């Protein structure tokens, strides 16, 4: 993000004093605490006069939902406002929230992205994973269609790769269940990875760090129990997982070392070797 977006004329500013958005623990235990945490982050952006680019889908939806709920409930708005005052903050509800997919597709545009590609990712077949809270619920006006999201696919195609449709595309990564049901979390992610592997797709692409961590960071944990999950003898999922911006950086000709590829845990070499 920090390396690639400035090259597309996006100025990134770190917001001091931000906190967790509250999802999913606060939304489950104290909805008011959730709205408070989300509102205080938006208040910091308003104070700085900046639009917000939440990188995580969970944060994005928390802000969108809190903004919506507070705009409809003046009692709640006053309550949150009184508490924010103690932190010298004020939330007015004027902040503009932008999702990463929206920034790339609707604001920058696939055409401009295509124009900066010097090293097209030809012959790569990739699967897009927009993630739940980038597309649902449609009642909150999410950045892409809830049942047939296409924007991340168009962005992948702008890099010269093929974006492959697959039945589990709009399915959850499972990570929000990690606290309560660890094994079910791994099973949900395993199903998606297995399907992608079986379809002969070269890799999975997302913009959400929570989903990325699930599919990339925890892929080895999934493999530790995969025979138990699928009742197989010698099963394995081996799916390279990337942030979209990592692939964009590679397609723009940037050095892998600048794109954090050292920190991906999934078997990405097989894709890097072909770029």
């Amino acid at each position, binding site marked *: 993000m920090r390396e690639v977006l400035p090259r597309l004329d996006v100025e990134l500013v770190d917001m001091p004093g931000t*906190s*967790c958005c509250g999802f999913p623990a606060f939304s*489950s235990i104290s909805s008011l605490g959730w709205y408070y945490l989300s509102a205080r982050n938006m208040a910091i952006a308003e104070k700085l006069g900046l639009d917000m680019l939440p990188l995580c889908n969970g944060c994005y939806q928390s802000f969108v939902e809190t903004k919506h709920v507070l705009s409809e409930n003046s009692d709640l708005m006053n309550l949150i406002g009184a*508490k924010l005052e103690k932190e010298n903050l004020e939330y007015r509800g004027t902040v503009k929230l932008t999702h990463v997919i929206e920034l790339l597709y609707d604001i920058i545009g696939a055409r401009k992205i295509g124009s900066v590609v010097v090293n097209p990712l030809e012959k790569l077949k990739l699967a897009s994973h927009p993630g739940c809270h980038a597309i649902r619920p449609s009642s909150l006006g999410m950045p892409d269609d809830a049942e047939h999201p296409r924007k991340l696919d168009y962005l992948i195609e702008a890099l010269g790769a093929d974006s492959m449709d697959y039945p589990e595309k709009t399915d*959850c990564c*499972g990570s929000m269940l990690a606290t309560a049901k660890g094994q079910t979390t791994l099973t949900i992610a395993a199903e998606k990875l297995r399907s992608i592997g079986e379809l002969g797709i070269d890799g999975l692409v997302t913009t959400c760090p929570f989903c990325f961590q699930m599919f990339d960071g925890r892929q080895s944990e999934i493999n530790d129990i995969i025979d138990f999950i699928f009742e197989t003898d010698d099963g394995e999922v081996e799916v390279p997982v990337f942030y979209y911006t990592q692939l964009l950086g590679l397609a723009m000709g940037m050095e892998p070392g600048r794109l954090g590829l050292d920190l991906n845990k999934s078997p990405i070499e097989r894709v890097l070797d072909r770029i």
Partner: protein
Amino acid sequence: MGGTVEDREVEIVSLMLQRAVKEMATEVCEQCGKCPSACPVAGHIETFNPRHIVAKVSLGRMSELLESDEIWMCTSCQKCKERCPENISPYDLILILRNLAVRVGYPYPEGYDTFIDTVIESGSSQEPRAQRTRADKACDRSALGLPEVKKPEEMEAFRDIVRGFIRRGGSS
């Protein structure tokens, strides 16, 4: 002033619950089954079925729901909310039920306490920590050229406020 704000909080939560229940009463769940067929969990855990949760709420079987661990099994993917032909949201019901269960003092997943305590302590759900590279080398934020994370400026006020929202076991 603190006292009045706390009084208002209880009033507001009550209103939100009333509104949710009223919405439930005006929509009729046909038990069509779109929600469990969309649900990523229902296929794996037999005791979890969003359709049954809606039915139990409609029948007023609240304590059964509040004390069971089924309300803690949702991944929050919101496919149930998206696909319900009657605009009922099992997901939103589950969130309300979770909030209520905690208030009343029923058990909930321990991990949430760790999450919440870390937020109250540091502002974040996890303190920044070194990652391992593919070559298994430890790598912290400064090694990656990333700026230090700045915590909330008014940390004491932040902690008091956030702590005030957490009322486990009906001890308000």
